[in-house]
């Protein structure tokens, strides 16, 4: 029989638990920590003292006044001192950020990516450059305790090898984690996770899904990604490729998906489909409403699309070289469809209604299989859900089992555009939250 945990193991565990509390919950009084962690006051004091000595937290009098009685000291994370690098590789953008303990974004760099096949160098080069720029600006007393990236595509859990998603390039294995680690050369490994998986975890730990043990997150970024959390744990599957909700086939006679199948959820509700149905992709046929016969979409890359969004997020349709008006893409384009529908554009309304119908069908299937407490719509699906909720929920009322949908809450992402990035940050913070002193020692060496 294995002996019980040693004193040292218990202390290590408690240090991590306390740090996690203030990392996720923000400044917390000792009294609150005592009751929430179920430990006695003197233990909390000792743990806090250790974490303070290590420079991970700081104790302060609470700022708020006005309440009677002696205020309890508040334990705050050392957000400005202890940080990680978080990266987000989306179809349209590359983001690098320095995120402080507690979850504050301290610094960030972002570049718009022109759509088309990715090469490893095109991703790693800018991200590593951003990280070095940001690192040069840090004060000498700061410490980087981890680095991680959210990647829009399949990620092998074992070795961080990624497989480009259908919207990113040819389906080949690429040693992304290894290359990021080598190029950063910060003396620590860069971890990698699927972007929607990580966003699901971020919403679960510090977003709209706090307190939910079973939730499903759907992420719209050209295609549709997903993260399924079952009993508090991310469902990774055998090799880490689990949760690809976007490739659940909902319409076998439907539209051609980038993955080669017909009628995947992402082929029926993705950005391209919505824009085509709304008559907003040049050269595309407007798509009939309702789940009837629909024209099969041209393959990816067949239509010329330009990044039409200015840095300020305003709509800036531009003229192509051939004089044809190139259209908005991405979030701005989706928002423009919802906006048009709201102002009475019948084609836009029909497009949203059709997409909402398929989205509702997909969610109904998920609800019947997983009986989640919450389904979260993130990325572009936030706009799509808000603009087609009547259709989505009508489908659910009809197609989901009443027992499975009872108590179901449908929500939009609380972390918004930063959900994937924050998910990467959480992945990077994992070691310091598991064993604070050891992780810090490793980072300092």
């Amino acid at each position, binding site marked *: 029989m294995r002996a019980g945990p040693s004193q040292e193991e218990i202390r290590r565990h408690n240090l991590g638990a306390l740090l996690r509390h203030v990392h996720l919950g923000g400044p917390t009084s000792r009294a609150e920590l005592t009751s929430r962690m179920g430990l006695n006051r003197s233990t909390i004091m000792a743990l806090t003292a250790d974490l303070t000595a290590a420079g991970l937290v700081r104790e302060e009098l609470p700022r*708020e*006044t*006005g309440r009677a009685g002696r205020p309890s000291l508040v334990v705050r994370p050392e957000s400005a001192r202890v940080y990680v690098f978080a990266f987000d590789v989306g179809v349209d953008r590359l983001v690098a950020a320095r995120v402080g303990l507690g979850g504050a974004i301290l610094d960030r760099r972002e570049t718009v990516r022109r759509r088309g096949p990715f090469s490893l160098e095109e991703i790693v080069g800018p991200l590593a450059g951003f990280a070095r720029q940001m690192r040069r600006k840090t004060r000498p007393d700061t410490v980087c305790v981890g680095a991680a990236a959210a990647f829009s595509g399949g990620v092998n859990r074992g070795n961080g090898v990624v497989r480009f998603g259908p919207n990113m390039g040819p389906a080949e294995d690429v040693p992304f984690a290894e290359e990021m680690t080598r190029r950063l050369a910060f003396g620590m490994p860069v971890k990698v996770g699927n972007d929607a998986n990580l966003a699901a975890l971020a919403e679960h730990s510090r977003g*709209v899904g706090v307190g939910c043990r079973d939730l499903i997150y759907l992420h719209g970024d050209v295609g549709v990604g997903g993260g399924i959390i079952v009993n508090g744990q991310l469902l990774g599957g055998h090799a880490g490729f689990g949760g690809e909700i976007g490739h659940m086939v909902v319409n076998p006679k439907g539209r051609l998906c980038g993955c080669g199948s017909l009628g995947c959820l992402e082929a029926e509700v993705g950005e391209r489909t919505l824009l085509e149905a709304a008559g907003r992709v040049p050269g595309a046929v407007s798509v009939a409403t309702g789940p009837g016969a629909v024209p099969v979409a041209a393959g990816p890359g067949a239509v010329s699309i330009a990044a039409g969004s200015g840095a300020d997020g305003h709509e800036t349709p531009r003229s192509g070289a051939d004089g044809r008006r190139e259209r908005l893409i991405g979030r701005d384009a989706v*928002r423009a469809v*919802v*906006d048009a529908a*709201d102002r009475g554009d019948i084609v836009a309304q029909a497009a949203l209604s059709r997409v909402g119908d398929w989205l509702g069908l997909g969610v109904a299937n998920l609800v019947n299989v997983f009986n989640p407490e919450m389904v979260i719509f993130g990325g572009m699906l*936030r*706009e799509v*859900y*808000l*603009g*087609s*909720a*009547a*259709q*989505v*929920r*009508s489908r*659910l*009322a*009809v197609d989901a089992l*009443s027992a499975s*949908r*009872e108590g*179901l809450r*449908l*929500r*939009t992402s*609380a972390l918004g555009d930063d959900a994937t990035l924050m998910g990467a940050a959480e992945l990077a913070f994992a070691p310091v939250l598991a064993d604070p002193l050891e992780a810090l020692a490793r980072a300092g060496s």
Partner: protein
Amino acid sequence: MTPVLELRGIDKSFGPVQVLHDVDFSVHPGEVTALVGDNGAGKSTLVKCIGGIHAVDSGEYFFDGKTVQINSPRDAAELGIEIVYQDLALCDNLDIVQNMFLGREHRRGIVLDEDTMEEMAARTLESLSVRTVKSIRQHVSSLSGGQRQTVAIAKAVLWNSKVVILDEPTAALGVAQTAQVLELVRRLADQGLAVVLISHNMNDVFAVSDRIAALYLGRMAAQVRTSDVTHAQVVELITSGRSGDLGLTNGVSA
């Protein structure tokens, strides 16, 4: 779960015209109740009865399970009912903090200093994840429609309201601001408040509501769980007062 607010058998006439007929309506904490109905169905009148602006002709009014008398807006406010009317009662020439405390300080007999008011306002906006206003010392006249709604809603939260009623808060807003207001509405309910949302937009209604109450010609046609109905059923309830087994029979609640 007991409703925080419940009306039973409300009748209301303006002169010879009866606008509300035997209306039952209940509102639950932690939920968004959408109040829908065609123009002239009586939604705003019902809300004004709840808020003590109109006296009802007959009917019962329960708050937290107890019978109460509402004779003025002040009575409703004392109970913790906050109503954001279509024409927002914000003062353009005052800043956000001043607006959030307007008409409140003396009522509760508290005198607050500027710093405390500023901090309370800031913390309330932060608790609602409102990041759209640049400075809380900004004049309300410089705010967009969505930001004004946000301030009006935040005011309700600041004063620990239990019931917040929003009469068509997204009617004049663009899509981006509508999304923000809808998410704020949802967050209020998720924090435990009872929220009533009046809206003509069925996507807004389905996006955030837990229940739908449909008024038809001054009668409550049905109050249903949003998860149990389809868009088509709700439209039928609004336009004809009934849909299948739901709704009015011969103009009377089933």
